[in-house]
């Protein structure tokens, strides 16, 4: 299981790549492995406001429906349009091809709340 060092993480199993006030968001390797075969992804549209801790999308495996929670508050500026067409990419490439949305962060202070790779790994191991 991979936990790239350059990413931040949430306890809801999203990852966040921070580049200034722009962040890219997806679900972790652990999340995709727990879900199993992903068959459906629902993402917001560009321009939608997302709020930290509130769901912004849905991932469905054969067995279950899971909400995806926004790690930060801000506006969606880009969406991975290919993902709903090829949801199985979340299983094969959760950190790269499986990215979900890019958000312009409105409260950079929220980024301090996120876990680093070691903290996230520990969180999973305790769980």
């Amino acid at each position: 299981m991979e936990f790239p060092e350059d990413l931040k993480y949430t306890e809801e199993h999203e990852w966040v790549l921070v580049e200034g006030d722009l962040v890219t968001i997806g679900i972790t390797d652990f999340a995709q492995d727990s879900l199993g075969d992903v068959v459906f992804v629902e993402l917001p549209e560009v321009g939608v406001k997302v709020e930290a801790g509130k769901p912004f999308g849905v991932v469905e495996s054969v067995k279950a429906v899971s909400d995806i929670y926004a790690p930060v508050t801000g506006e969606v500026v880009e969406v991975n349009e290919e993902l709903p067409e090829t949801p199985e990419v979340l299983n094969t490439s959760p950190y790269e091809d499986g990215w979900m949305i890019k958000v312009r962060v409105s409260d950079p202070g929220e980024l301090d709340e996120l876990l680093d790779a070691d903290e996230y790994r520990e969180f999973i191991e305790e769980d």
Partner: protein
Amino acid sequence: MLKRTPLYPAHRELGARMVEFGGWEMPVQYRGVIEEHLAVRHAAGLFDVSHMGEIEVKGPQAEAFLQELCINDVHRLVNGQAQYSAMCYPTGGVVDDLLIYRFDGEHFLLCVNAANTDKDFAWIEEVLGDCDFSAVKCRNVSADFAQLALQGPAAATLLARLTDTALERITGYHFYEGLVARVPCIISRTGYTGEDGFELYCHPEAALTLWRSLLEVGGDDGLLPAGLGARDTLRLEMKYPLYGHELSPEISPLEAGLGWITRLEKPSFIGREALLRQQQAGIPRRLVGLALTEAGVPRAGYPVFHQGEAVGVVTSGTLSPSLRQGIAIALVRGDLGRVGTPMEIGIRQRRVAAEIVKTPFVRK
């Protein structure tokens, strides 16, 4: 404390993801639901179904008792034959669906759903107490049996490598007592996937030997261990009912599309009067197969609409691994059964287009 089947160590070795199901800790998947599902459709899959319950019914009046207890016609069974049936309450609601195995006229074995085993046994004892079948002896013998299901087009070929039993003589819904990998088994040509296949009942202590022998002999031909996840998507593609979803004390077998096993012409069985009344008055709801015509995954509990009006609810739904399309079984208003009828399923905030389709969803 969850119960574990004798195959629990094998599931751990295989890295299965375990879940709670009907009071049991069971494998939901090994490598992945879709891969296991497709293995069963194209080659073969091996399921641990030891959680299923077994109830033995013996005695001179055993057949007469089962005829009163169950909705199908037990008299049609010959020795060595199995029958799909159900038990109903006097209200017509379903206690459980089950398989009845006839060894002889005084010896039957019922295979019931795991979560219902204790309830079923208590119900059977209650019926026995109320009726004049004092010579009938019922025992919950679930602990005496492990059960493996070998399912798929390659099942017979693979099984033949481990048994001298002439499998071609065991036709559908028949069984034979023989050796498989030197393990004494009831070899039953039954299953819950829509594929050819066998259900093997053996002593719990022999289950690991049987499991490992089957996987060893079939591995090169594409046999995969398959979990409850694939079992559910496979049965759903065939529109086979699952207790707690398509069957319950609130749903009659006529509503559930089990008219074909509901022998109202029998002079008597528990629930007959209620079911006759329902049939005469018109069946209020029916189970239909829905296929989505847009992207989406229907799930149990989602509302179903027709021309804007709420007309029912999804009882089971998934993305069909064979069709790569959302499919659902739904309990809808009784007048809405026609194939091609446009429907909508409420999926979160959207209404997703669907239509009533012929079932099974996947044709063999």
